[in-house]
């Protein structure tokens, strides 16, 4: 059962990474085997940047709320989407770290 879930999650991540790799490659128009590593890093960096943008937006909204400029709903919206993207990023990071550790522990 656990294996099955792991397989599904792994496949989902694989799809996401492949999709983002494709889009990253389409954008920067790089080709060849060498570029794969760079675009993967790019993908991760893009994801990180998205998360940071969301967090900053949430921060700005919170400050606005303190000074009475923003609606409660807008603040909650911003905070929730920031939390959501942070959680996603953390989950994917954990997954990647686990995968890396697994490779590192591999018997040669």
């Amino acid at each position, binding site marked *: 059962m656990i294996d099955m879930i792991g397989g599904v999650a792994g496949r*989902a991540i694989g799809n996401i990474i492949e999709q983002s790799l494709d889009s990253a490659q389409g954008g920067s128009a790089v080709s060849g085997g060498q570029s794969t590593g760079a675009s993967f890093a790019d993908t991760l960096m893009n994801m990180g940047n998205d998360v940071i943008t969301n967090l900053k937006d949430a921060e700005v909204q919170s400050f606005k709320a303190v000074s009475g400029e923003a609606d409660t*709903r807008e603040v909650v919206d911003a905070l929730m989407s920031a939390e959501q993207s942070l*959680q996603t990023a953390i989950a994917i990071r954990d997954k990647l770290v686990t995968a890396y550790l697994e490779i590192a522990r591999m018997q040669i």
Partner: protein
Amino acid sequence: MDPLILSSRIASSGLKVQESRLRIVSQNLANAQSTGETPGADPYRRKTISFSWELDQASGAAMANVSRIGQDPVDFDVEFDPSHPAADDKGMVKMPNVNMLIELADMREANRSYEANLQTIKQTRELLSLTLDLLRASQ
């Protein structure tokens, strides 16, 4: 766009619309006794609000939107009160055309719609986090 995130955004537009509705209701209720200041002057006229849907270009979703804040054309009630500053030469004062019962019912309806939209947001959040749990559980 992710349908789950999209639906919470749509629900958020519903919240916004209901907030505006509640604002109009509170205006009407607060001014239920607001008369004019000069003899024969018109009192507060009840405000109405109507909604419409707006197609979100990026996602193709129908977002709720306030289309118009209008005025209720119903005639004012008149009361006999000669000492009132807004009384005309016959001693009649025009009172606002606000019906408390209707406003309260409207407020209750806005409240229920708001709760329903909140529930949608809650549900989408729960589904998203359950899906993310798949990643965590397999570690």
